């Protein structure tokens, strides 16, 4: 028996078994089933980091901990938040979407109506125009990567093509913009070009399979793949077709980028290609020389990521990373590259190229073009310095 076909090896038998103490969770029945699950209590660091206004606690942001995540999907509980006045508790039976203005037939739609409409699903990112804005600072911010670049998340959104609804209302020929308004306590309003509305805009009802989360627009929101998040109006209640934009506060006073010339960029909708290394990144620590896997995220508001290159010498030489399938347009793309660390200090960078040929710029190039006061649309190459002790920090290099 001691040399069995199955094991082919001598077995220590009873004596060894008697010594073995299984872990406690193998000796007691585990927890029961749950109607809706939660993360492990041992993963309590994988949280959204909140930065809100103490005088107006619903006004602020919370970042997705991208330095804790892998793959491309953001779990719904960790999708970044940007609220102007908190998360409304909307009763879907009391909520309607009104489409009016320069339309032939103004119409309003109940949530249950829209649930019966043709639906389309889209894996795509949503990124705040203000994501990564610490990059404009004169000194490199020292914070985990997700709390620097994590005003971006990626989900499978399912919704009604906005074009389907606009077919029903009709658009008058003068209609060039659609002013979208949320049903939150900020009644946030933004003007969307009709071209985008008719192209790939969704009135999203589902996020990663389930109905939208309250903080992501329940019961319905706009999704404009690749465009800055503030236009993806949450808690959507009204779409008003108009000839000109509303010049709302968030498309004039905010989400515009002052330049050194004194002229500010406005209606800068597309989120340009960006990438950064999530593993390793500040807060992680390399355990001595040896083989590591560099892993990171890249995306572009213009389409698919074509290539991501990684440098381990501060940008002097670059190696092409592998892109994890599926590589989808306007979607997070995971890149990975094996890397052998020799224990010396060095600087890691990644650089994304999208299918239009656009190349993620070095920081100096972006700053030269935009100055230091743009605040929005920071997408420069990110550099992590690795110290001899294996710790990482954010550097401008």
């Amino acid at each position: 028996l001691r040399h069995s076909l199955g094991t082919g090896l001598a077995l220590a038998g009873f004596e060894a078994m008697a010594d073995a103490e299984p872990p406690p969770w193998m000796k007691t029945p585990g927890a029961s089933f749950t109607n809706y699950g939660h993360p492990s209590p041992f993963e309590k660091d994988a949280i959204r980091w909140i930065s809100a206004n103490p005088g107006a606690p619903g006004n602020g942001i919370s970042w997705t901990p991208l330095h804790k995540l892998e793959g491309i999907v953001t779990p719904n509980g960790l999708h970044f938040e940007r609220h102007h006045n908190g998360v409304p508790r909307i009763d879907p039976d009391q909520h309607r979407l009104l489409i009016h203005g320069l339309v032939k037939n103004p119409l309003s739609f109940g949530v249950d109506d829209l649930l019966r409409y043709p639906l389309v699903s889209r894996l795509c990112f949503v990124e705040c125009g203000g994501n990564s804005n610490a990059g404009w600072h004169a000194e490199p911010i020292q914070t985990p990567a997700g709390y620097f670049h994590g005003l971006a998340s990626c989900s499978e959104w399912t919704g009604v093509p906005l074009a389907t609804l606009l077919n029903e209302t009709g658009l008058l020929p003068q209609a060039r913009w659609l002013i979208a308004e949320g049903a939150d306590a900020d009644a946030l309003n933004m003007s969307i070009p009709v071209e985008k509305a008719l192209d790939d805009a969704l009135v999203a009802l589902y996020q990663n399979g389930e109905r939208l989360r309250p903080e992501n627009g329940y019961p319905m929101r706009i999704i404009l793949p690749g465009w800055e998040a503030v236009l993806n109006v949450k808690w959507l209640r009204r779409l008003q077709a108009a000839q000109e934009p509303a010049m709302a506060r968030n498309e004039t006073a905010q989400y515009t980028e002052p330049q050194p010339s004194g002229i500010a960029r406005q209606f800068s909708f597309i989120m340009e290609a960006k990438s950064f290394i999530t593993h390793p990144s500040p807060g992680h620590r390399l355990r001595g020389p040896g083989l590591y896997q560099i892993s990171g995220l890249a995306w572009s508001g213009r389409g698919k990521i074509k290539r991501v290159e990684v440098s381990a010498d501060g940008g002097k030489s670059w190696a092409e990373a592998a892109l994890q399938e599926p590589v989808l347009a306007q979607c997070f793309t995971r890149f990975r590259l094996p890397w052998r660390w020799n224990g010396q200090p060095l600087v890691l960078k990644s650089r994304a190229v999208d299918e239009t040929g656009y190349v993620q710029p070095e920081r100096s190039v972006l700053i030269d073009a935009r100055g230091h006061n743009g605040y929005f649309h920071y997408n420069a190459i990110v550099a992590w310095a690795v110290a001899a002790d294996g710790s990482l920090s954010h550097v401008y290099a």
Partner: protein
Amino acid sequence: APEGPRLGRPASPQDIAAQDITIFPDGGGLPTGLGTVAEGHALYDSHCAGCHGLKGMGGSAEELAGGAPPGSPHPDRTIGAYWPYATTVFDYVRRAMPIDAPRSLNDSQVYAVTAYLLYLNGLLGAQATLDARTLAAIKMPNRDGFQRVWPGHP
């Protein structure tokens, strides 16, 4: 686009008017009502100054007056220095402020605080009254300070 089942309910002009709160930069959408700088000053001090500071400066929330102009080394996004349209102040305050009680001011009160904010920014005199006509007529200093990136997005 795929065809829908046409479940939309026709919206009457009344339905629409009851929900439509958009103010356009040409003044489209501005309601009747009016307010003075003096009324606005009183309203501001009781409902707004706690966050935005007396005279729109030095509070915990955004500064609403003063600020360096575009092109200076540290430009600000304050109303007088940056905002291209005065109508935006009315639109935004009516829909969103005070942040602890949005939609609590009536339209005349919104005209009044808007008047006071414009006064603080040197855009209205201390005795001024604001209504739809006078608000739409205001030309902001930074009116031409913006370049539309869309649709010619480089």
